[in-house]
């Protein structure tokens, strides 16, 4: 929760916050919840930030996929995961990532996830 609060503060203080709708922090907070329940079991960072095949197959698959590029393996550091992009991956799946039904991840969940990634990628860029 502390991390989330820091990220929200980052967003609000970033200057870009003014260009984003006032309810974005709420959407991002909801998106964080979706991420933790639906995405993190496969796509989180491992203990100590070390993603490993044995424990986080999504993170590991993206590590291999984007080897030699600047695209990070961790979703929370990606800057390109907008709502339409997320929708394609979530509804259609990609390789070993299966598609998810609306009863599992709703369209609203996807919008919130996009809001969350917008915050986390901003924080990652500032590091």
């Amino acid at each position, binding site marked *: 929760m502390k991390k989330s609060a820091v990220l929200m503060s980052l967003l609000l203080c970033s200057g870009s916050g003014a260009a984003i709708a006032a309810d974005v922090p709420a959407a991002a907070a909801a998106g964080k919840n979706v991420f933790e329940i639906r995405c993190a079991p*496969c796509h989180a960072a491992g*203990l100590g930030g070390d993603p490993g095949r*044995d424990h986080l*197959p999504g993170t590991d698959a993206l590590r*291999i996929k984007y080897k030699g590029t600047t695209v990070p393996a961790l979703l929370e550091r990606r800057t390109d995961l907008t709502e339409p992009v997320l929708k394609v991956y979530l509804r259609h*799946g990609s390789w070993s990532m299966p598609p998810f*039904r609306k*009863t*599992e991840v709703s369209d609203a969940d996807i919008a919130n996830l996009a809001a969350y990634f917008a915050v986390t990628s901003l924080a990652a860029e500032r590091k």
Partner: protein
Amino acid sequence: MYTVQHARDLQCKGMPRPELFRAARSCYGVGDHQHRLFLHEMPFGPLTCLVVGAECVCYRESVINNKGDAMTILPPGVSARQFAKALAEFAAVVGPDWVLSSEEDLQPYRDHFSLLKDQPDELQASAAVCPADVAQVQAIVRIANRYKTPLFAISTGKNFAYGGPAPNVRGSVTVDLKRMNRVLELDEKRHFVLVEPGVSYMDLYRYIQERNLKVWVDTADVGWGGLMGNALEHGVGYTLGPYRDHFSAHCGMEVVLPDGELMRTGMGALPGSGGWQDYKHGFGPDPAGLFAQGGFGIVVKMGFRLMPQPEHWRTGLVTVPKRRDLIPMVDTVNYLTDLFIIGEPLYGSPLRILREDKAFLQAADSFDEAALDRVAAEHSLHSWQVELQFYGSEKTTLANWEWAKELMLRNIPGAQCFDGESLPVPVTQEQIERSTRPYPAPYASQMRRNVMHGVPKLYAWWMPSRTDDFPDSWNQSHLGLFSVVGRSGAAVLQAQRDFDRVARDMGSKPAMPYAISTPLNWNQSAFLLGNGAFGSATRNEATPQSKLDQLKLLREVLKRNAAMGYGDYRAPPLLQDAVADQYSFNNHALRRFNERLKDAADPNGILLPGRGGIWPKALRALRGAIRK
């Protein structure tokens, strides 16, 4: 009747490709003041728009596949117009947002790993209906009866390797129960939980953690799975025997029957009983088994026994030198298992590290037992190992491990025992993920500690994924193939030879010699042996043709296995008829009996037709019909 509007005047959700929509060649409407239905002749085929009140949903009776060809998906024997009316009635029950029929919405209802992916006869749903409660499930079943529309029920999880969410009959309407996701009751003192279909292992684990309850979840390998769906497919877990056979661990069901009536099993049939989850048998014949791997009803509530959290967890490894030592080793493990002393035992062969050794491979390929023992001795290796685990207190787990060692050393000359780990429960995440193991090289642990501690994770999902060894491919036909083998060392040694012979006959070779394949003791009283040459085998050549070839091959393997007395425990829809064919005693008396029951209970044959190889009269011609 009402005045027909033109298609372009409608603002509809799920409308695929608006530019085509405007190009509709004709438009006509039917319906009443509640449900207005528009059928549009589109360049790609008929498009139906359903208006319920102010809401409007569009769906296609034809979809365009990735090659641009139209693929019609309708329930068998149901006209487009009748089907549209059925969907209108479903929408009136669950709301238009929860009748899903656009191409995009139906993508996740396909089997991501289907051997018929993108083929015109791929098993796909025509629509999905997502009820929020039991009354809605009942209403859906009654509507389906009126329109003779087959239903296929799914709960939560993915069911990958066994067909995913795809139905047995192309064009079925999928009843997606995920929205029914409440933990209805959890008793920490009597050790049970009553759940709705949409509760996953991860959901239940979170529920338990948030309340600091002292019970465990016996989870499937991939934690997104659901308690109910996994149990009804005879899925398994990894803790103590009574819990890891998930269907056997169930304790009472509430079921919507094929006519829409609601029934409870066991003590649930007694109004006001306080012991529904305590005594699952009730009185008289218990039909609970009909609802697993079968289409006799839609289960909407299900109870499960939960393992109380132990105070301590301990492991130990036993190795035995000679090939034939597997027999007394299994006998000893069975003794400990059936006294409920140990959790899941993990068998393996230390000889795996010789997979590049010529002398070993020659001995293994010819099943030359003397030569295998000689090669093992030359490398100072034992032939077999089993990892044991004990749940209890620190003292009782130690005493039980000491006793297990005593039995092994007494029963098997030359056996060696190595102390494993000894951890207070609950273990930490760091302890779960720790990769070091206490055994001396070359002996290795095969234990995935999260499932042994009832912690649902997705660790196992690396299997179909890209890996460092295969960075540019994924396993597009991830598929489970496990045969039931007698729970003895002698039966395992015989099955190894039998499976090897079939593989050779079929021109296949496993990654590891069958001579050192070991059984899985997922079910307390049974062994399952993986069919290494034929399961997930097409990582590098997943073309449409290679998948069709694999389907043909698998059906032949199942036939040959049955001729030797081996039957599979679970299968995807494409193989369910072939597996059901294996169980043929007395001219398929079991299947004939089940189908007599099916015809009586479900005269319209609308509930999960074909599931488990049980076909209703109206659709019996479909048995084994796909790519036969």
